[in-house]
C-alpha cells in the first residue's frame, strides 16, 4: 500500500468546532488529526492522512494577517523539529466559500506555507471571495459554492487537486475546476493550430458551441462621470498611453509591456518639442511624435486654452505610459493610481490620448 500523503488542514474557529463570533479572536492552535471538514476529507480521500488541524479565529487572522500567518508557519516548523516522522507534503485550507475574513486567511496561509516551507497548498473559495482577486496568482484555488451547501464538492475537489499538486501534475482550470492563475503556460497540443481552428469552425458550423482556447479578458465598465459644469474654472490634466516622455526616458519606461507609468512636470513649458520630449512607444512609428510630441500630447493647444480662459488651468504634471501589449490588469492598476494622484491634487477632468 502506498504511503499516505501527510496533510495539514487549516480551518477557522467555526469549522474547527470552537464556536462562533465569540471565539473569533482565538490564536492559531494545533490539534492532532482531522476536525470538522477535515473528517469529511479524510473519509473521501484515502490517499490523504490529515496529521493535524490548525484552527484560528477569523478576527485574529484578519486583524494582523502577516503576523498571524507567520505564527502558523512557526507552529508547523516547531512540529517539524520535534518529530522526525512529521513530513507534511500538503496543506489544505477551508473550504471558505464566500466568507471574506476566512477566505483571506486560507489564501494567505497557503501562500506562506508553499513559499516558506515548501509544502504544496490549496484552498477552496467562491469566485467572488475578495481573496480570489488578491491571491489567485500564487495560490491554487478550487472553485467552491458561495455557502456551506457545497461543502462536499468543494472539499472533495480540493483534496483531489492537492494530491495532483503533490504528484507534480499540471492543474488545468477548465478540467480541475480551479480558478485560473492568470498565467499562460506552454504545452504540446495534439494537432497544429490550423487544424484545431478548422475543427473549431466545423463544430461551430454544425451548430455546436466550440470552446475557445484563449478566453478574452473581461473588461470592466464604469458609469460615466458627471460632466464638468464650469470648464473655465476647472483644472484639467493630460494623460497618455502614447509613450511621450522627457528626452532620455528618465524612468526607463519599456517600449512594450510597460511595467510602470511616469509623472512629469510641464512647468514652464509652453509646448513640447523634439528637443525636450520623445516617444518610447514600440508599437507605432515614432517619427512624427519625435518630430513634434504635441501630436500625441497636445500641450501647445492646452496652454492656448488656458491663456484664453477656456479652461481654469492645466495641471502641471502629466502622466505617461506605453500602451503596447500591456496587460489589462496592469493598465487598470496604472489607471487607478494615476486617478488617485490626480484627485489628490484637485484635478477635475482628464484628457487621455492614445495612439
Amino acid at each position, binding site marked *: 500500500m502506498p504511503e499516505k500523503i501527510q496533510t495539514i488542514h487549516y480551518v477557522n474557529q467555526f469549522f474547527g468546532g470552537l464556536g462562533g463570533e465569540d471565539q473569533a479572536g482565538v490564536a492559531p492552535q494545533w490539534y492532532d488529526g482531522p476536525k470538522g471538514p477535515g473528517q469529511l476529507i479524510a473519509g473521501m480521500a484515502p490517499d490523504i492522512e490529515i496529521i493535524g488541524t490548525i484552527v484560528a479565529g477569523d478576527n485574529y487572522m484578519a486583524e494582523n494577517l502577516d503576523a498571524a500567518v507567520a505564527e502558523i508557519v512557526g507552529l508547523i516548523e516547531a512540529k517539524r523539529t520535534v518529530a522526525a516522522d512529521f513530513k507534511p507534503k500538503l496543506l489544505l485550507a477551508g473550504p471558505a466559500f464566500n466568507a471574506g475574513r476566512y477566505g483571506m486567511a486560507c489564501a494567505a496561509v497557503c501562500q506562506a506555507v508553499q513559499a516558506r516551507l515548501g509544502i504544496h497548498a490549496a484552498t477552496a473559495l467562491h469566485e467572488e471571495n475578495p481573496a480570489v482577486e488578491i491571491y489567485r496568482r500564487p495560490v491554487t484555488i478550487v472553485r467552491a459554492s458561495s455557502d456551506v451547501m457545497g461543502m462536499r464538492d468543494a472539499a472533495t475537489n480540493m483534496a483531489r487537486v492537492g494530491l495532483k499538486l503533490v504528484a507534480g501534475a499540471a492543474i488545468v482550470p477548465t478540467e480541475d475546476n480551479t480558478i485560473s492563475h492568470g498565467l499562460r503556460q506552454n504545452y504540446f497540443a495534439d494537432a497544429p493550430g490550423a487544424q484545431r481552428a478548422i475543427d473549431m469552425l466545423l463544430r461551430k458550423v454544425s451548430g455546436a458551441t466550440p470552446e475557445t482556447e484563449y478566453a478574452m479578458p473581461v473588461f470592466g465598465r464604469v458609469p460615466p462621470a458627471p460632466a464638468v459644469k464650469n470648464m473655465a474654472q476647472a483644472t484639467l490634466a493630460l494623460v497618455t498611453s502614447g509613450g511621450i516622455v522627457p528626452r532620455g526616458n528618465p524612468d526607463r519606461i519599456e517600449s512594450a509591456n510597460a511595467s510602470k507609468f511616469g509623472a512629469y512636470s510641464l512647468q514652464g513649458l509652453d509646448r513640447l518639442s523634439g528637443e525636450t520630449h520623445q516617444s518610447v512607444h514600440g508599437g507605432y512609428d515614432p517619427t512624427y511624435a519625435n518630430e513634434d510630441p504635441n501630436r500625441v500630447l497636445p500641450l501647445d493647444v492646452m496652454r492656448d486654452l488656458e491663456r484664453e480662459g477656456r479652461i481654469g488651468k492645466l495641471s502641471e504634471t502629466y502622466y505617461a505610459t506605453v500602451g503596447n501589449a500591456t496587460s489589462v490588469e496592469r493598465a487598470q492598476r496604472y489607471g487607478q493610481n494615476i486617478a488617485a494622484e490626480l484627485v489628490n491634487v484637485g484635478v477635475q477632468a482628464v*484628457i*487621455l490620448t492614445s495612439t
Partner: protein
Amino acid sequence: MGLPTAHICSIVPISKTVGANRIIPSIAIPHPLGDPDKSPDEEKAIRRRLVEQALAALGTDISDQHVFDEPISSD
C-alpha cells in the same frame, strides 16, 4: 463620483471595448493629434479642434459610452 475623462484615440473600437465613456476619434495612430502633411498652422488648428471636441465631451452629461464625432460649431 469618478473623474470625467475624454479619450482621444485612433482606434475607437478598442476604446469602446476597454470601456471608455467619452471617446473622440483622432487622426492616425502615429500622430493622433496632428497631420504631418499639413502646414504647422493647419496642423495646430486640427489639434485644437480635437481638444475642443474633448472639452465639449467633458462638458456633456452622458448615461452610456458615447463617441463624440459630430462636428462642433466654432465660435
